[in-house]
């Protein structure tokens, strides 16, 4: 790749050099034009065919399973989420995060989530003696009865036909009522767009048949993604073989994030 070195040396910026460069550039453009156009057509075709696969939202109802016993608190999910969705890196904005619970011998429960668990957790040295510790990934529960959707004054946050709660950032007025209404602390106001933001289950990936980024990167398979109502899906299998709990069931939000091996201390 050292074509520059093989070129005859000319005084840089001289009129001859400039006009030759321009001529060569135009020639190359003319030669490349059909190729370029063809490429564009092919890409367009590919996109069109992807659309032709015609993703049908009404055929899905997404949910997520989380096996608490499998989570090792590596925080890769929270990190991948921030990268995938361009979430601000400051430790006050999370679409998903990991909490660590330390239950001490004298009945105290200490919960932490430094930087959402992205950098891992400090060691659990406790003078009181550790009874048990575990990690709990958290995210929007994609409630079937979402209080955030109910309270949005302009309908900027809505429930899709495939069971995902989304925010239209071009419509959101930034009143933050939805953030107040969410019992799970899963929403925040994006400091750049000044609109409410939350987990979308990586909706842009779902419509391409992929799983959310957090599920993709989890090294232990603690997150299971799929259709709630499908006859066979990883999620249905997960629900079949585990005893399931949801967070804050008394609020009747009907969460679609299902936890297995969840401790009663988790709120």
């Amino acid at each position, binding site marked *: 790749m050292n074509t520059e070195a093989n070129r005859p040396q000319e005084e840089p910026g001289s009129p001859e050099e400039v006009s030759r460069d321009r001529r060569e550039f135009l020639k190359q453009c003319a030669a490349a034009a059909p190729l370029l156009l063809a490429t564009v057509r092919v890409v367009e075709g590919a996109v069109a065919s992807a659309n032709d696969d015609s993703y049908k939202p009404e055929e899905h109802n997404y949910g997520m399973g989380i096996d608490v016993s499998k989570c090792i608190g590596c925080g890769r999910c929270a990190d991948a989420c921030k990268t995938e969705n361009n979430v601000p890196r400051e430790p006050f904005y999370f679409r998903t995060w990991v909490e660590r619970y330390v239950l001490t011998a004298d009945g105290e429960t200490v919960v932490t989530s430094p930087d*959402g668990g992205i950098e891992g957790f400090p060691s659990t040295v406790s003078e009181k003696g550790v009874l048990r510790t575990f990690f709990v990934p958290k995210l929007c529960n994609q409630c079937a009865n979402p209080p955030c959707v109910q309270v949005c004054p302009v309908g900027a946050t809505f429930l899709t036909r495939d069971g995902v709660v989304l925010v239209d950032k071009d419509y959101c007025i930034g009143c933050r009522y939805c953030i107040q*209404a969410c019992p799970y602390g899963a929403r925040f106001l994006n400091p750049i767009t000044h609109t409410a933001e939350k987990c979308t289950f990586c909706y842009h990936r779902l419509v391409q048949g992929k799983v959310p980024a957090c599920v993709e990167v989890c090294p232990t398979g603690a997150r299971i993604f799929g259709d709630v109502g499908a006859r066979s899906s990883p999620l249905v299998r997960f629900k079949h073989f585990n005893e399931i709990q949801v967070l804050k069931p008394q609020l009747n939000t009907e969460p679609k994030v299902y936890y297995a091996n969840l401790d009663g201390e988790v709120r």
Partner: protein
Amino acid sequence: MEDVAQQLTAVLQQVSGYMYPNEVGLQWGVLVVVYPYITGLVAGAFILASLERVFRVKEVEPTYRLALLTALAFLLIAPLPLLLHLGHPERSFEIFFTPNVHSAMAMFGFIYAWYLTVVLLLEIWFDYRKDLVVWARNEHGLRKWIHLILTLGATDISEKPVMFDQKAVRFITIIGIPSAFLLHGYVGFIFGSVKANPWWSSVLIPVVFLFSAIVSGIAMVLIIYLLTGLVRRSLEMSCLDKLASFLFYALVMDFSLEILDFIHRLYEAEESIKILGTLISTRLFLSLVVLQALAGTVLPLICLAFFSPAFGSRALVRFPEELRRLLYLASAVLIQIGIFSTRWNVVIGGQLFSKSLRGLTVYKMELMGLEGFFVSLLLLVAPFVLLYILVKVLPPWKEASTTSVAEQAAGD
């Protein structure tokens, strides 16, 4: 963006226990405290005005128009704190055009518009119409034109139209009372209906808001009437005494409801009781225990119980007029501080604890900036400036009114 992050990093140092990471910074700041405070004054001032028209409490008549103008001045400013706090104020019109009918907040636009146009503006217009016509006839220059334009061309002040005006005012007031209840009850509902938040989620909140609104409205009109009366050297002590008595009754109701709410929470002792207890005894001790309960409620209650004629025609402890005026003023000012603290404790207090019920954060009010101290102060002063202008254009004083006492008596 960096400022926000820096501020939140400082807040993070003061978090005790565990907050969900998205909860460290508060979503609703002091502007959202100002909003229910102002709408409360509107509702309260209007209900006071209605006392005279609907229940014919003659003593408070001198405050009738003043109370209406106070309500109008505050109502005109009320949407500003909300607008300034929005992430995208330029999209706020969507609340009117594409409201989500299931949202309590979306109803704001309609209730506000109803209250402003159908209740306040109409009532003020009908009440002032005759005066506007007479003033326009007797004045010159700009004032003449302003008053003439405000008549909207309805310049017939023969007996029949004037009778109609009076009937209209009475009718609107009757509609206005439930509307005022709706206006502020609804503001309470915005908070009371958030089931995710145990500090807010209570069926009593709208009622508590309403009665505290009545308290704050009466107290505010009392302050304005007393101060303007002193300046104008025209103050009716019987009116002040009556206002103070009503203030006492409203305060008793308000206090009883607050106590009921408190005891109910304490007795039920739900899951959230521990964190709420810590909240009250630490973060909210000054604003709730000291300012709201002691200074803003108990002290004025004692003061008004003893020194106002609340239990009959004479006060329990009789003081000369000058001292009584001073005590009324002090009580009313304390009540304002107390009611502002109430709004603060609801709005800010409700966000200081984690919905995980495991920790508390702090609220750092910024000084400058759109959601800061100075803007809030400006918004609290603005209604008074507006009221000054309104009073200049539409003098609410008895002597400015062209309706003679004899005529009014005939009307009754």
